[in-house]
């Protein structure tokens, strides 16, 4: 306690200097904390997006990124067969095709992504208005559109929409298809600019007029709680070794290792740099401060203050500077992360709901540990200065000068 009081008095005696030190730590701490959030933010956010879709296993024809490789053939039969495997609760066939909105000749036709899915299986999108795809077919096909598309074209529930499939090289001869907007939904992987329309599998066949239409881009599988994602994936792999089966966890791990690794690397570099910078800042401030107070410290030692108390005082001074600055850094970091996140989320093609800076308790614990290490390391040299201080010689020098 006396050492803490000694440190506190040293800090408040020179408020301007202490304040600048605290502000410096706050600025550096904010950047450090944000880099810790960035290091795993994308992975956490991506994992959350995958979980939100309600399916935990994906079945693809190859390990090529989704929608770039070959398609699954005889998809309907495959979905039924996989659905019958023990440990599988539901299978959703997903067909994604390109289409264009049919407008007046003078206007350019906005491109859309048309998703074909089985309406009997729970969908991967979240309805915000109207109704989901109906189970039965009516006189006109009903589709669900995403919010930005509805806003862009001024569509509401009940509006009519005409689409022209752009599914193959012969798409010019395909007749446009008329749809009714049944609902507006949020699609988890939509970017801010993409227009998405979802209909049934039959709608895809009609839109594209595909002769060999029973081809899906992927199958989304929901496992039973008993089997779990790993168990379900293993069962599918055993039955269909030629297919590429991947769980959400494996997908996140792959993205973390490959696609998102740049941000992890850059955050690691910046964490190192900011930590070193913070260490340097505190070390220099304390060293200069101690150097200016050598005579005073020698006098205190001469009147009976123990070496350990004075040395501990310097350590506590460092801890106080870092603690106060570190706490101030947290709201600063929150504001900064919002700004940096907004910048990075303008990257083209990214899902609108993906975030780069995501809070997790682990980041906070790591932040506290790193700052604690920096504050102790920064205090080592000034503590040594104080502990080896020759009392008589210092006092004599002070009197002579």
């Amino acid at each position, binding site marked *: 306690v006396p050492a803490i009081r000694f440190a506190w008095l040293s800090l408040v005696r020179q408020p301007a200097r202490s304040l600048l030190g605290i502000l410096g730590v706050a*600025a550096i701490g904010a950047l450090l904390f944000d880099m810790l959030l960035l290091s795993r933010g994308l992975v956490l956010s991506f994992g959350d997006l995958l979980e939100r879709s309600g399916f935990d296993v994906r079945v693809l024809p190859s390990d090529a990124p989704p929608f770039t490789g070959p398609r699954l053939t005889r998809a309907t039969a495959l979905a039924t067969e996989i659905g019958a495997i023990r440990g599988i609760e539901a299978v959703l066939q997903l067909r994604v095709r390109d289409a264009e909105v049919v407008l007046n000749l003078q206007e350019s036709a906005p491109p859309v992504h048309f998703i074909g899915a089985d309406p009997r299986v729970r969908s991967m999108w979240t309805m915000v208005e109207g109704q989901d795809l109906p189970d039965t077919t009516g006189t006109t096909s009903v589709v669900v559109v995403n919010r930005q598309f509805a806003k862009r074209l001024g569509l509401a529930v009940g509006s009519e929409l005409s689409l022209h499939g752009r599914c193959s090289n012969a798409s010019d001869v395909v007749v446009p298809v008329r749809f009714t907007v049944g609902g507006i939904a949020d699609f988890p992987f939509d970017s801010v600019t993409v227009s998405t329309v979802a209909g049934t599998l039959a709608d895809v066949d009609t839109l594209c007029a595909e002769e060999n239409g029973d081809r899906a881009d992927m199958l989304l599988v929901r496992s039973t709680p008993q089997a779990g994602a790993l168990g379900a994936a293993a069962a599918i792999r055993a039955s269909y070794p030629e297919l590429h089966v991947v769980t959400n966890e494996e997908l996140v791990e792959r993205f973390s290792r490959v*696609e998102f690794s740049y941000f992890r690397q850059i955050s690691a570099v910046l964490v190192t740099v900011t930590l070193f910078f913070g260490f340097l800042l505190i070390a220099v401030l304390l060293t200069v401060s101690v150097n200016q107070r050598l005579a005073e410290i020698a006098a205190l030692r001469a009147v009976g203050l123990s070496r350990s108390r004075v040395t501990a005082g310097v350590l506590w001074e460092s801890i106080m500077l870092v603690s106060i600055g570190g706490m101030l850094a947290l709201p600063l970091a929150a504001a900064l992360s919002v700004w940096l996140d907004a910048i990075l989320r303008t990257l083209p093609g990214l899902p609108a709901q993906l975030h780069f800076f995501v809070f997790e308790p682990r980041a906070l614990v790591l932040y506290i540990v790193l700052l604690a290490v920096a504050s102790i390391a920064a205090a080592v040299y000034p503590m040594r200065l104080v502990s080896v201080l020759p009392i008589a010689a210092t006092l004599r020098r002070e009197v002579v000068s």
Partner: protein
Amino acid sequence: MHRARSWLLLALALFAVSATASSQSQNTAQQPSILISRQLADSHGLRIGDIVQLSADRSGNKARPFRIAGVYEPTPDPMRFAQQRLETRLHLPDLLTLTADPSDPSAAESITSINVALTKQSDADAFSRDVMARLPTLRARPTNAPDERTTTFVVVERFHLAIAIVTVVGSAVFLLALMVMLVDERRGTAGTLRLLGFTRQRILIQVLAEGALITVAGAVTGILFAFATEDVFNRFFQWRYDTTLIFLRVTPSVVWRSLLMALPLGIAASLIASWTLLRQQILALVRR
């Protein structure tokens, strides 16, 4: 079809596990030739002259043998630097035979894009417009036109700039704290100079000159440090991502921007720190 123009880049991922090396030496000259990327050669231990089986089907169905005619270093692509470049280049007819959908009569005549080299590069915009006017179903664009790729780099640059701003703010506070302490150390000297008749302005100019000198020295040291570590950073990331891409380059523009930020900040810090001291009365300066 022009042989040199007809090669297409194809991710080996498409062929999945069906690429297997073979030691067959007979009839190798009769097999169609391919080029493979260095990364693919390294990862699968493939050599020039080896026969590999390629298939568009993950199960390896309808695989066809090809002879490796050469190994190439892929052109560094900043958009794909995190992905392993397991690639092969085929002659276009071979690729179409391998991947064409038998149920699609037009598949054997379909290609993704055509690269056009113009005699005059400045005609690119006019040529693109002309192509789209004549063939409305096609999309033509100059290779230097802004697209998703340029937007990505603009965003990344903006992010780096934001980080740089925060770092500079932190540095400025650090510098100010340091200058306050250094100037405070000179309190006695400043008081003595004032007693001898030196004006505040003259002392301030001296402090400014000293601050500018320290700032220039610091900025130059920082730039030299950046030059010295540039290669280390590049080598680390090139090793990490197995690419020849340059990640960090200290350009004259970066040097000038650093100087333009550092010099005013350094001088302002010394000015603010000095002024807080010099505005005090002489007796206060000499602690009397």
